[in-house]
């Protein structure tokens, strides 16, 4: 029997992580309020109240609550008229929603590389992928960390293309003191069960564009314009009053939780900075608030004495630290090659692995998340220390993994 839990030793990290989602009587009260109102459908008072509050949180003119953070991306692109024959640039290192929403509108996804400092899209790689058909770029704010918005906004303006923020994981994030939802033509948020602001299933769009706002609102009204004519594509991607009510009460709790996430992440950054075999993502003073949906770190496999990143993470899991390797780049998935994709976009998605060296390196050797259905970063500092101690324990006994 070894020292490490993976070899039969005693697990070190016996922490009680913060259970999520977190409900109180205020949430129960709002459900009761909705019930008493007798109206549970879309565009109700809870929904309108949430729209105003979430727009304000983001410093955006408008917020539109919708069914989820996949269909929000789809709606933004439809509202901008993006479709068959157009190209949209995304990173491969993201969740399927970023890709499927583009295929759903009929546009062609074009993959770019990521920047290993941010795990969001590399500005230089994006630049190389822009063609006359490019209509938009969708930077993903992975784990709630904003991309380099100075450079990406400038590039989008220079090329006359839209920047759509995939802020599914980034509720509450700020860049240079401004809410993440106020950058680009629009931003897309998710309120799925694991997200930092949740109603089980839900999403939102923020925008400062009057035209895009009205286009999307008309689509959500089954395509009817102000005269009652069906002038737009119609969809029902709305949320109920149950969901909107919960979002309102959860939003009351949100600011304090966001502070705690940032404080615990800072503590974890400090702990991990003491090691040379892992490191937190690079600090950037322009990120005035990181949403920290989960905690992303880099594993330096070359320092692990012959042990792979995956072996290292496996050992950490056995110690009780919930870690995963993160995303499999989407260009490796069957979706890219599927016949249905080809039919919908009227062509093929080009994949050239040599164009994504950072993504490939992150996928195979480096990327790692502390990630769980519990919200680790809302736990007590003593539990955060147990995580760091477990890293040290695994490394100190790394020969056991060979």
């Amino acid at each position, binding site marked *: 029997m070894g020292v490490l839990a993976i070899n039969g030793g005693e697990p070190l990290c016996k922490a009680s992580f913060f259970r999520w989602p977190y409900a109180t009587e205020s949430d*129960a009260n709002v459900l009761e309020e909705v019930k008493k109102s007798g109206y549970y459908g879309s565009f109700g008072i809870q929904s309108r109240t949430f729209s105003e509050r979430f727009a304000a949180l983001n410093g955006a003119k408008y917020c539109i609550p919708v069914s989820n953070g996949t269909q929000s991306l789809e709606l933004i692109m439809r509202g901008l008229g993006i479709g068959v024959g157009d190209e949209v640039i995304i990173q491969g290192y993201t969740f399927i929603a970023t890709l499927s929403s583009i295929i759903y509108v009929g546009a062609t996804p074009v993959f770019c590389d990521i920047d290993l400092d941010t795990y969001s899209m590399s500005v230089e790689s994006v630049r190389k992928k822009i063609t006359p058909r490019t209509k938009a770029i969708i930077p993903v704010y992975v784990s709630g960390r904003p991309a380099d918005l100075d450079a990406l906004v400038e590039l989008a303006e220079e090329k006359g293309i839209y920047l759509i923020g995939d802020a599914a994981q980034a509720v509450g994030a700020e860049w240079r003191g401004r809410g993440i939802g106020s950058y680009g033509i629009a931003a897309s948020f998710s309120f*799925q069960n694991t997200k930092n602001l949740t109603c089980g299933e839900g999403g939102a769009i923020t925008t400062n564009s009057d035209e895009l706002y009205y286009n999307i609102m008309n689509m959500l009204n089954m395509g009817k314009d102000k005269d009652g004519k069906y002038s737009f594509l119609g969809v029902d991607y709305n949320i109920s009053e*149950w969901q909107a009510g919960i979002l309102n009460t959860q939003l009351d709790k949100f600011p304090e939780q966001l502070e705690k996430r940032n404080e615990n992440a800072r503590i974890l950054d400090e702990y991990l900075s003491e090691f040379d075999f892992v490191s937190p993502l690079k600090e950037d003073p322009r990120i005035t608030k990181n949403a920290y949906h989960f905690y992303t770190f880099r594993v330096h496999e070359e320092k692990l004495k012959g042990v792979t990143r995956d072996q290292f993470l496996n050992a950490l899991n056995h110690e009780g630290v919930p870690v*995963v390797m993160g995303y499999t780049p989407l260009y490796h998935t069957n979706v890219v090659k599927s016949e249905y994709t080809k039919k919908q976009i009227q062509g093929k998605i080009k994949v050239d692995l040599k164009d994504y060296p950072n993504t490939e390196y992150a996928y195979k050797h480096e990327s790692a998340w502390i990630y769980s259905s519990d919200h680790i970063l809302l736990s007590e500092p003593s539990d955060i220390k147990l995580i760091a101690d477990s890293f040290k324990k695994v490394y100190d006994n790394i020969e056991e993994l060979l």
Partner: protein
Amino acid sequence: MREVLFSGRWGTISPKSVEAQAAIAEFMERKHGLCLHSANAALEALLRSLDIGYGDEVVVASYGNAMDSMAVSCIGAKPVFCDIDYDRCTISVESVKESITEKTKAVIVNSYAGDCGDLDELSRICKDNNMYLIENVGDEIVINKQPTATVMDIGAKSSLNTGVAGALVTAIDDVYNAFYAYHNCGRSPFATDNLKVQDFVGGNMRIAEWQSSLVAFNIEKYEYKTEETERLAKELENESFKVMRVFHDRALFVYNGSNIDDYVTLLNKKGIKADKRFTAMHKEPFFKSDYFKKLTGSNGINDVDLPGVEKALSSFLWVYFD
């Protein structure tokens, strides 16, 4: 609702949505059921799961729920608008036959007026032409077993009122499995790893647990009553205004006077909630727009002569008793 709230599972295929699946399947007498965030989403996911998309055609009635032609457009297929059988207020079988081309992949029948049409004949036509028969019962509860799958609205206007939600039922395993994946980010019903999701081009159309928790509860209480609506509807009848069909909260009337719009205004002035409800979708501006053409790769929808629809628009009037 409290049970959901303190369960820590508010979405993403949790216990109440699993319970709702079973309840809706049993209620609609099919092997499989699935609840989603809206009926529109259900129809979209169904079309995608049947591999229908860009370049394909789907036959829909021009007079009826806008959702049908919108969902077809949304997935890049072209809706081909056909006429209705005025006497039954449902899709015309003859017009369906005339609308079929080599690109046609499905026919959507809609029971907004409580009648899906001659499903035996429509099933035969679909089988002969290698097409799917899709049923949209809207917010009415109608149980038929011939269609490939049935989509239903269980939102705020349904007698199963959950707020905003839809459902799909089918007896076919493959249709259900693909549909499930399309509604859940590409994950098959048998997936074990939520981060590996990518065999289907899946979107997210999942239902939250709040609505799910109401499905089985409301099904248990469900009782379709029309007596009171019938009584109220009869009170409104006159020489030129006759009840055609009665539902739980509304009635379809036939108006034989000179101007239906004036009559709607008259009823509204009396405090009676009434409207024409539907329009001739094939004449709506969206289907002639550049975006529609781009979406579907078509030249848009031409104005065609659909006499059943025209007659319906000048005589069918809906009165609501909610």
